[in-house]
């Protein structure tokens, strides 16, 4: 789960990291009131789960409260990478002497949290990694001991020559590391970490992503979820216990297992079609999940055919068959459907489907070919 910038700033602030002030507005009038309270120049920033906000026109400088209100009016409701902006952060415009980067991610290869710092901050770290990799310093932290003070200070000196600033940066790194384990973050970035003309070191902008597997045991973090920032179909799928990602194609896919779901999408493409979605009904079998899945798939007007690909293991094929029958009784389908079903309780499933007038295939390639052909309006 991604957090908004203002939420990430709150987390850092609670850890004791110096973060300049800033408040959230959901209406232009609120933005104006906040700007008035701060006085002077402010920045109005879109709070949306997408990179490149500045380039998209989602970050604007305002000299007066009037201007802040006007910018908020323009930014609230705008769409950045398909996501609508519902909130803006209003913060006093900072005078910046330098911009750096500090981030922690869990690295798959070293299997440890890795602290990354770079004196080249304020831009996307992937861009720095591609263009000037020597400007990124990395340290794999041993979670049994945590981040040693000398390690943090060493990286502090990689950012600043001044010992006071290096120590301030080291302190921020320690607190960021603490924040990672305290919130269950899979990524925590301060970008940019700035120095002001008077020499203080502050976290100006922050990004935190929480490992979804942490949310059950951290209700305080789950409460920060902004459902309005998610695509509606994906939200509905999550609430139904499904994993769904909308794509641009027209063959609706319903599969059990993430790997098989990806392989099915790939095979749709292989046979000349375009998948409309990724959908994994998960391991446990429950007819109701299949009903929810079909409801979500058919709510996409681009879908021209529906393809089931089920390899029963833990998932019982008869449960899936019952779900299909139940769903088509509740809401008759307007597009053709192709069902491939094999594995646990396959025979029972085939009987259930036959009684309801459906046929089931056993070969994955044949099913995908038919689904693509039917989507294109041809007989298979």
């Amino acid at each position, binding site marked *: 789960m991604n957090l908004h910038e203002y939420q990430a700033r709150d987390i850092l602030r609670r850890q004791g990291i110096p973060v300049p002030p800033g408040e959230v507005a959901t209406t232009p009038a609120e933005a104006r009131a906040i700007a008035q309270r701060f006085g002077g120049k402010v920045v109005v920033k879109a709070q949306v789960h997408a990179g490149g906000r500045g380039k998209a026109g989602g970050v604007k400088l305002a000299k007066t409260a009037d201007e802040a209100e006007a910018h908020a009016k323009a930014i609230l409701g705008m769409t950045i990478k398909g996501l609508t902006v519902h909130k803006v952060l209003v913060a006093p415009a900072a005078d910046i002497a330098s911009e750096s980067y500090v981030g922690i991610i869990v690295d798959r290869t070293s299997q440890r949290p890795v602290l990354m710092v770079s004196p080249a901050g304020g831009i996307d770290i*992937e861009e720095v990694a591609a263009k000037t990799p020597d400007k990124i310093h990395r340290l794999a932290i041993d979670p049994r001991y945590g981040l040693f003070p000398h390690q943090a200070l060493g990286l502090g000196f990689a950012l600043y020559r001044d010992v006071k600033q290096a120590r301030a940066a080291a302190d921020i790194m320690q607190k960021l590391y603490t924040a990672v*384990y305290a919130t269950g973050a899979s990524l925590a970035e301060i970008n940019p970490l700035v120095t002001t003309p008077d020499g203080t070191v502050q976290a100006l902008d922050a990004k935190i992503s929480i490992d*979804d597997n*942490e949310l059950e045991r951290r209700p305080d973090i789950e409460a920060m979820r902004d459902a309005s920032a998610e695509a509606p179909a994906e939200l509905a799928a999550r609430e139904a216990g499904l994993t769904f990602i909308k794509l641009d194609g027209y063959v609706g896919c319903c*599969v059990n297992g*993430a*790997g*098989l779901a990806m392989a099915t999408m790939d095979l749709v493409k292989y046979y000349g079609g375009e998948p409309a979605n990724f959908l994994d009904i998960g391991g446990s079998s429950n007819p109701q999940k299949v009903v929810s899945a079909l409801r979500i798939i058919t709510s996409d007007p681009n879908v021209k055919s529906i393809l089931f690909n089920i390899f029963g293991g833990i998932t019982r094929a008869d449960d899936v068959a019952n779900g299909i029958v139940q769903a088509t009784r509740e809401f008759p389908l307007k597009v053709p459907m192709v069902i491939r079903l094999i594995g646990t309780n396959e025979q029972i499933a085939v009987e259930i489907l036959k009684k309801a007038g459906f046929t089931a295939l056993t070969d994955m390639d044949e099913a995908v070919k038919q689904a693509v052909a039917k989507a294109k309006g041809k007989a298979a």
Partner: protein
Amino acid sequence: MSIFIDKSTRLLVQGITGRDGSFHAKQMIEYGTKVVAGVTPGKGGQSFESSVPVFNTVAEAVQQTQANTSVIYVPAAVAASAIFEAADAGIALIICITEGIPVLDMTRVLPYVHERGARLIGPNCPGLISPGKSKVGIIPGGICKPGKIGVVSRSGTLTYEIIHQLSTQGFGQSTCVGIGGDPLIGTNFIHCLAAFEADAETTAVVMIGEIGGTDEQLAAGFVHETMKKPVVGFIAGQTAPPGRRMGHAGAIISGASGTAADKMAALQQAGISVMKRPADVVPLLKERL
């Protein structure tokens, strides 16, 4: 021969009285796996299916039954703790089926398991099977056949699809290992490839990868430098968009090296025959054997 599990496997089931644990314990017993003990705290002294003794702790179970392998079906909230307990009790091979363990928990689990000389397979994996000998986990026994092909995969049902292709076209398997779809896992492709290379019975290996991370590229390097046996590979997620997590916590394209195209190129360069679709597995194996 086979890798990791065989007739000498004495299995302990952590969470044997739970919904998933009891269902799969029965399936494993039916398959012929030697299930020697179960553990559920508070249910020590009971017996499962009137044949398998249940203990309160793993240490007690190991002492009484000489279990050498453990499979974990407990809920995600206590799964990391179950792995620590198994490693502490001296279990040499731990298979964690449980999905949803926080990755930060795994940053502490993995060094602990490693220091005790144990091997962890998973988490979030279907386990493994040496057809005709032993099955540990949830891979349906009925789709497998004893034979000479080693299978290693990051996925679950996609692995079943490939095994199905192999078995129905006359290619049995020595061992099939599902290593799991999480970003941090105990046993990776290279560990399995090395074991298959050393296994006298295995004649060729099928590896099934997916988008995200660079494990497949590292495995390709290993195949190129070390392996003499032919390897056939598949990468799922050619149509996956960057930045979106495709179900598995580990399947997300972040950075160019995580894409299917990059991984397929790396496999090809290492001399691995790359499938375009699951149905290519048998034709490619025939070319290489």
